């Protein structure tokens, strides 16, 4: 209250070391196709896709190999041409094995594309249909099928589409590169989304540590008065949906509610680009753009790789891992998943691979909670992380539920700040799962 900040933002949050300089100025590189690709059937939130190919089937690039199954689901396309060698359980970057189709690439370049559409004339239905067929999932991390987000319930009045250009996770520069390299495609993508959900107000939220991107975008939107560029304070988790909406529109999404409920649709930079690709170029989501970074990798890069490329190939391409590496993480350092099996493949929503060294992790001895209140100060959702974690670990789920454990988005700011180095997020995640199970049980009863 005392130190009012003039840059738009939210209360709480932290400012971890950015480390973006490792890859900030490297343009995207296209990685050659690997020999073998493992394509999980669950690359999105929701029901797994249903395979439509068998062992031994020949497939072409862009061909559907597994179709959408249910409302919240997404089809999967073959990212390369080749032959299905098997359908089996394989490790994934989420940490849990899933069914996957394994394709041996044959290095033939025959791609099956959908017809290109004119972004100026396309109808909202067509956009949604195209997004659905292209199997586009949100690039923000949760991998929610994008077409669902483009179909808001009829009773919710949507006012604004916000493109999330914050990229608040340290290390990652994928969105930044997109903004700098494909500025105009991004704007068209945004306009397509605005059309699909039927609003005439768009915004792109960017943290103020990306001046070049801000300049380029401001230049590009000169002719679009309905799109504004919102410059936000550099702070983690500025890019979280709720925080972004708060910063841009000043509205707070109530617990248990969605951005729809305050009239906003949020899309990631990567998603907007993917929509552009699907509509304008007719290309389904076959590749993932990602940042390979960290002090533990020999050649940090911004890469465009085929979905299904095993981590091992990718790390090899970037010159291998240094001796000093202690952790390999897929996603950002704050919310990513530590890897134990490098045969796990890149998925549609993978945004980065980090190889971290001891120095970056800053791990220190775990001590009991000292109730210093730092976690309470930084929690962007105004929760009491230390209490929630303690209650969860003692399995007092009712109390935890009372204190709003289900609101937590696991952004990790509390654990990052905690001087006692407690695994707060891990416990809260456990408690959250159990509380949600309890709630489901209650509803069914």
């Amino acid at each position, binding site marked *: 209250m005392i130190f009012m900040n003039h840059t738009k933002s939210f209360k709480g949050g932290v400012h971890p070391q950015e480390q973006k300089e490792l890859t900030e100025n490297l343009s995207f590189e296209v990685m050659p196709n690997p020999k073998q690709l493992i394509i999980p059937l669950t690359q999105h939130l929701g029901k797994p896709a249903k395979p439509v190919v068998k062992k031994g089937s020949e497939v072409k690039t862009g061909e559907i190999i597994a179709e959408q199954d249910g409302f919240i689901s997404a089809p999967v396309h073959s990212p390369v041409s080749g032959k299905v060698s098997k359908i089996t359980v394989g490790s994934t970057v989420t940490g849990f094995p899933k069914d996957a189709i394994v394709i041996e690439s044959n290095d033939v370049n025959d791609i099956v594309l959908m017809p290109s559409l004119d972004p100026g004339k396309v109808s909202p239905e067509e956009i949604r249909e195209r997004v659905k067929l292209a199997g586009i999932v949100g690039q923000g991390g949760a991998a929610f099928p994008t077409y669902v987000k483009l179909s808001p319930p009829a009773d919710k009045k949507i006012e604004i589409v916000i493109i999330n250009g914050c990229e608040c996770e340290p290390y990652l520069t994928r969105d930044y590169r997109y903004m700098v390299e494909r500025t105009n495609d991004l704007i068209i993508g945004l306009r397509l989304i605005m059309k699909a959900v039927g609003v005439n107000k768009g915004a792109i939220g960017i943290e103020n540590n990306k001046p070049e991107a801000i300049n380029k975008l401001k230049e590009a939107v000169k002719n679009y008065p309905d799109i504004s560029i919102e410059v936000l304070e550099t702070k983690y988790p500025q890019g979280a949906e709720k925080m972004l909406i708060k910063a841009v529109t000043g509205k707070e999404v109530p617990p248990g509610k969605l951005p729809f409920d305050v009239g906003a649709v949020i899309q990631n930079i990567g998603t907007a680009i993917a929509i552009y690709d699907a509509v304008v170029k007719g290309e389904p989501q076959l590749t993932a753009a990602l940042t390979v970074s960290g002090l533990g990798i020999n050649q940090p890069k911004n890469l465009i790789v085929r979905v299904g490329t095993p981590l091992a190939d990718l790390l090899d391409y970037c010159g291998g891992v240094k001796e000093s590496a202690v952790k390999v993480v897929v996603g950002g350092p704050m919310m990513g998943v530590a890897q134990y099996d490098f045969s796990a493949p890149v998925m549609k929503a993978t945004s980065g691979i980090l190889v971290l060294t001891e120095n970056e992790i800053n791990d220190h001895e775990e001590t*009991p909670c000292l109730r210093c209140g730092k976690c309470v100060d930084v929690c962007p959702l105004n929760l009491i992380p230390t209490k929630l974690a303690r209650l969860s670990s003692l399995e*007092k789920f009712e109390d935890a539920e009372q204190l709003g454990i289900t609101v937590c988005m696991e952004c990790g700011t509390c654990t990052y700040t905690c001087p006692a180095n407690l695994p707060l997020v891990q416990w809260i995640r456990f408690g959250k799962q159990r509380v949600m199970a309890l709630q489901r049980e209650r509803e069914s009863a």
Partner: protein
Amino acid sequence: MDLLLIFLSAAIVNNFVLSLFLGICPFLGVSNKTSSAISMGMAVTFVMVLTAIVSWILYFIVLVPFKLEFLQIPSFILVIASLVQFVEMVIKKVSQPLYRALGIFLPLITTNCAILGLALLLSMREYSLLQSIIFGLGAGAGFTMALFIMAGIREELELTDVPKPFRGVPITLITAGLLALAFMGFAGMI
């Protein structure tokens, strides 16, 4: 001023729980819910004030004039028991739902030594009726405060790593000891 002193003395300086050790049983058994602590406290305060009135009347209007002081203990306890029973019945008659929700505190109060202690103390100190009422009010307030603070602390204690032999009553006693130590700061205010 005299009344204020009686109130402060009973509530803080010579707190019933922390320095006179009256009402230890409910204090040790108190739940960790602050709202039930306050409810219980309110019930006790109400009964305390009623007890103060009734036992004052009994003692100074009946027992003393008839030289029956030696019947103090049995008659006090019977009167208190009847009183609580009566309140229980009235509340039940008046408000069945509330009785069901909160009536359980009442039988507990019957045999609470704080209530009988209050009656005995006020007869020993020869308070006037007004003083007795204020004394009861102060004792009730002090009891409620101790219960409230303890309920809060216990909630916190549930989440701590207290050595196993000390869990439950022993740690409550030790906390009460430290609380009593802290309340010594008020000594000398009367």
